[in-house]
């Protein structure tokens, strides 16, 4: 699954760059994306996990805009805290999942991921806390 995602990503970039849906062009793109080196060892990733993480990353976009509006309107910053957020896939998560999680956390303006800790069991997250923040 991870390798398939890498190849699909390469194809997407190739097609967007060339903007040419002809068969020959698609064949060249496919050949190049297969010929480029792939990661030698990948960790197991089920399609369900991938689609859920991707869906959460995409739904984080509108959340990011609403948070940005609140951040710009409410200037009274109370404190900034560092806390741990448990990773959903404990232990040896696929790098695709880690990437999507870090993307989702960092994209929203209230939180930034600081790293993966405890052997991949939790993310360190820096979060802004506001006086008027209602949750």
């Amino acid at each position: 699954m991870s390798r398939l995602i890498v190849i699909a990503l390469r194809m997407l970039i190739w097609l967007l760059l060339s903007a040419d849906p002809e068969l020959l062009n698609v064949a060249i793109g496919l050949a190049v994306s297969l010929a480029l080196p792939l990661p030698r060892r990948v960790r197991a990733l089920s399609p369900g996990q991938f689609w859920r993480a991707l869906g959460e990353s995409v739904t984080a976009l509108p959340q990011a805009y609403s948070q940005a509006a609140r951040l710009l309107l409410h200037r009274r910053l109370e404190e900034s805290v560092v806390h741990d957020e448990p990773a959903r896939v404990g232990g040896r998560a696929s790098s695709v999942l880690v990437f999507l999680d870090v993307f989702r956390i960092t994209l929203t303006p209230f939180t930034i991921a600081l790293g993966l800790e405890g052997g991949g069991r939790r993310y360190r997250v820096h979060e802004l806390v506001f006086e008027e923040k209602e949750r």
Partner: protein
Amino acid sequence: MSGALLADAPGVLAALAQGASAVLLGLGLLFWFAGSWPLLGRASYLTKLHYLGISDTLGSALMLLGLLLRFQREWPLLVLALLSLVVWNTIFGYVLAACSQPRRRP
């Protein structure tokens, strides 16, 4: 009357797209300035990074959406720019934040 309106539908759509594009570009510019302003203050490094994420990622994404409405024939390159901008800026913010942290003992 409705026939004339229907015949003019492409023109109306184009005008709508132009208007929406201008709004998106303006909003993006607003996000740019609003997010960059706190960089001049005395907030902590990480707090500034939060604001920088607004201007850099979200504001620029709005601008690219505005450009997408304006130059619809160039959509493949603009979509590529949008994707790479959002992913690159976000991950770069993460890299900057992670590198600012002292290494903690496990």
